[in-house]
């Protein structure tokens, strides 16, 4: 569905990412995770054709995004960060506007979702709350019935209730109709419930791309006690931090491998424990705290 190869982009002299390559297979929900400034929205803008990368190529449905024929965009549902829509339109007007562009438009899907909002069809979008606007945006995407959805920070500004409603509807829609979804969000708990695969970005590169279940099965947070400053480092250890005599770090090594690594490098430790953690903790462990 999506193939990006060797993407490199700068803003002025600041490198955002270099030689970024990834693929999104059909029928999967993939979440792009990363700290602020790692290039998530940049990636989304490149995918949507709103940014020409410095170098590299992005293809959606096999077509280069910058040269995609207009008719193919009917198969891509886009959500802009902040659930941006035409605020001067009413619920009814905006549905009428979009319906004329999409031959597979499902009006019922839109109005069924909006029934939950208890808003009148003549209500202007500018007079709605953030949560209500998010449902209008989601309803429009569901009605469009695209094969691929690209959603930028779908949970921005939403309270837990609306975030749950959005994720549940989205997942149900994607799984029941074999849709492909590429999304970003800062609320990792929502991502954990929603996505099949994840890409974790760090400054300039992809740290890992794998199914979420596989990541959570493989990643451990290790804690142990030391009697002096912990100065050992290894590519297999992610962001070791020490508070007083306790060291904490992340790793994909299993318990025995970790013990062997520490022993063979002369690290004196006590009370080594390994814990499987949530996606949020794994993300913080892999990318580091600020």
């Amino acid at each position, binding site marked *: 569905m999506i193939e990006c190869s060797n993407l490199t982009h700068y803003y002025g002299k600041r490198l955002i990412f270099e030689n970024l390559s990834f693929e999104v297979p059909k029928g999967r929900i993939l979440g792009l995770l990363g700290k602020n400034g790692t290039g998530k929205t940049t990636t989304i803008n490149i995918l949507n054709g709103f940014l*020409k990368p410095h170098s590299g190529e992005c293809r959606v449905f096999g077509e280069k995004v910058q040269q995609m024929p*207009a008719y193919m965009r009917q198969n891509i549902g886009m959500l802009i960060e902040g659930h941006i*829509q*035409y605020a001067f339109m009413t619920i009814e007007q905006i549905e009428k506007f979009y319906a004329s562009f999409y031959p597979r438009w499902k009006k019922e899907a839109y109005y069924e979702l909006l029934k939950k909002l208890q808003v009148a069809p003549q209500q202007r979008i500018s007079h709605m709350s953030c949560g209500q606007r998010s449902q209008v945006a989601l309803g429009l995407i569901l009605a469009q019935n695209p094969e691929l959805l690209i959603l930028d920070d779908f949970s921005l500004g939403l309270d837990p209730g609306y975030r749950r409603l959005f994720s549940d509807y989205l997942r149900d829609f994607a799984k029941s109709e074999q849709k492909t979804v590429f999304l970003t969000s800062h609320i990792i708990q929502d991502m954990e419930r929603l996505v099949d695969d994840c890409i974790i970005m760090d400054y300039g590169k992809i740290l890992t791309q794998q199914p979420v279940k596989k990541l959570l099965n493989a990643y451990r947070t290790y804690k142990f006690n030391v009697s002096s400053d912990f100065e050992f480092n290894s590519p297999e250890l992610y962001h070791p931090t020490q508070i007083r005599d306790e060291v904490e770090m992340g790793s994909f090594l299993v318990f025995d491998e970790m013990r062997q690594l520490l022993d063979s490098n002369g690290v004196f430790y006590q009370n080594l424990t390994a814990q499987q953690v949530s996606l949020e903790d794994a993300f913080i462990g892999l990318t580091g705290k600020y």
Partner: protein
Amino acid sequence: MKALFYKEWIKTRWFFLAAALVSLTLCEYCLLNISRITELKGAVHVWEVMLTRDAIFIQLIRFVPFLIGILASLVQFVPEMQQKRIKLTLHLPYSQNKSIGTMLLFGILLLTIIFFLNFLFLIVYLNQVFALELVSRIILTAFVWYLAGFLSYLLTTWICLEPTWKRRMINLLIAVALLRVFFLSETPEVYNTFLPFMVLYTVIVSILPLWSVQRFKDGTQD
């Protein structure tokens, strides 16, 4: 195309209705002035003043089309650039140049209707007071102001759709230079010889907004 016209109409209808009302009211005010002078001093006096002092009696509306053009563009395109909403239009499964072209066409059509109504209003009344040659003098003089209205609309759109502030400032300076040409002289019919060129370069300027949109799509930044 109909859907885009529908969207633009919802966005701008109150502005265009207000612009039509205000411009027609100002035309009416000018014509009432002519009527008042004609009543007080006679039509001969009015004709004499027109011929000897290069007066056309509708100076009040000289900058009105220019202002309407600027405001029309702001009302139409500033909402599109707020939070980059124009992405919603550019993402539609419809040629992006055609989408922007349709939006521009909508604005031009509405301006044409308003300006046409202004002209109609002027012509119908002036024909009752002046000879054909004097009516033609007034209308040809006013034509340049209304052409400036279209140009100001296109140039303001070019500026609005530009994604970077630095380039917007440069575009603004260029726009001011291009528009100034239309207001260099107040002498009636002084632009007659240049009119075809002015129409031509107004048409050519209509491409500039598409260039701004291409820069937006490339993700050009300050």
